[in-house]
């Protein structure tokens, strides 16, 4: 479980944060606080689908579902466990 969390957290840090950004945690709001804009979610979606061999329907890939690492983990788990 922690592995998935850290994997996603590290991806978010590498993909979206600049060097001088503050540190983020599993609960940091990503979209509502401006770290990730809605356009940039595409990369995250492609990453999750490729990494975990899952398919997330567009209706589930909402800004709310992607707003924290914890939310993303919960979303991914719904499809991994299917």
């Amino acid at each position, binding site marked *: 479980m922690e592995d998935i969390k850290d994997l996603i957290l590290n991806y978010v840090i590498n993909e979206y944060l*600049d060097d001088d950004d*503050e540190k983020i945690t599993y609960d940091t709001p990503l979209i509502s*606080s*401006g770290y990730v*804009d809605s*356009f*940039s979610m*595409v*990369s995250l979606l*492609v990453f999750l689908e490729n990494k975990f061999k899952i398919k997330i329907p567009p209706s589930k890939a909402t800004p709310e579902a992607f707003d924290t690492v914890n939310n993303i983990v919960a979303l991914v788990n719904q499809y991994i466990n299917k």
Partner: protein
Amino acid sequence: MSYSDKIKNLYQNQLAEIRNAGIFKEERFIHSSQAADIEVEFPSGASIKNVINMCSNNYLGLSSHPDVLKAAHEGLEKRGYGMSSVRFICGTQDIHRELENRVTEFLGTEDTILFPSCMDANAGVFEALLTSEDIMISDRLVHASIIDGMRLCSAQHDTFKHSNMEHLEEKLQLHADKRIKLVITDGVFSMDGDLAKLDEMVRLCEKYDAMILVDDSHSSGFLGRTGRGTHEHFNVIGKIDIITTTFGKALGGASGGCVSGRKEIVQICRQKARPYLFSNTISPVIISGVLKVFDILSSSTERRDKLERNANWWRKGLTEAGFILKEGDSPIVPVMLFNAKLSQDFSKDLYNEGIYAIGFFFPVVPNGQARIRTQISAGHEIHHLEKALSAFIKVGKKYEILGLTKEKIIEKYGL
């Protein structure tokens, strides 16, 4: 009448939230024409104050140039006030096409189509050219009008870290299977004043078979040796597939914009771009003024040369005084203060000293990167810049930030 109390309260609460967040925007009324010296009423009802304008996009000082005014007057007399029609019904005059040809020649492209504004150009161009089979890959700091234009388009979209070419290359590889890949960037980024790395971007686009669109609104008329824009600066004239730009900044400063680029792309825009199809184009009076602007720019590089000298003088002066600036080669010179409140207080104190410059903070710029954005003009004389620099130093001393590092300023004022 269905403007119920419920709806009214909803909007009143939204306005209160904006006020409470300290980001309520208020206009400052200018009682003179746009220039280096302006007369300002602020706040509303206050007595008029003469100040030096350090925050306009009037980069070449042409907004109130006598020759431009004269040409606009003549245009008004000869071609009238308005067209009362969109372009393709009965809203196109000979001078509209003349301006399109002048822009094409100036930018070194194949063809040009005018839009009511560059905001409209950006709102229309993506939807006209791309479908869901295509991908738009944009720099994360592109202008709001590009973001809105991309939202109106059914193509997929992705972003790359600001000016990060490795990240752009990764994205071009990731989306290699798409029909059209369009890389999108500003030429000069308006908040930071830095330039897109157009030479490297063109190389990557050629390598991965992608097109490139550049919004050159903050560079057309002055960047590059003869002022053609960012593509001239990087020696890639003829290699930018689509340029969007404005006549509302350096090129006379009134309004209007365009899409300039590959012939077929411009032709498609003329058939499909909705802001072109469903709105009147630029009025004859403005077209006549902009044509004169191009006459002025074609006869001499004097104004862009002066702008470059002024911007260099200003950057050097602020740096030597101990301010932290954003690096760049443009006349946009952001003075970094980091703390939002400090940026507002600093701006107020500058105003009291007769200097008009605005503080920007989150969400206009990233959190913790509040700044005063100064913009230099060829309309500034050295005595304007000397007075402005003295005011900056006086206010900088008051807040004891001169010579401090970013960390020390943040330590003193917080983020």
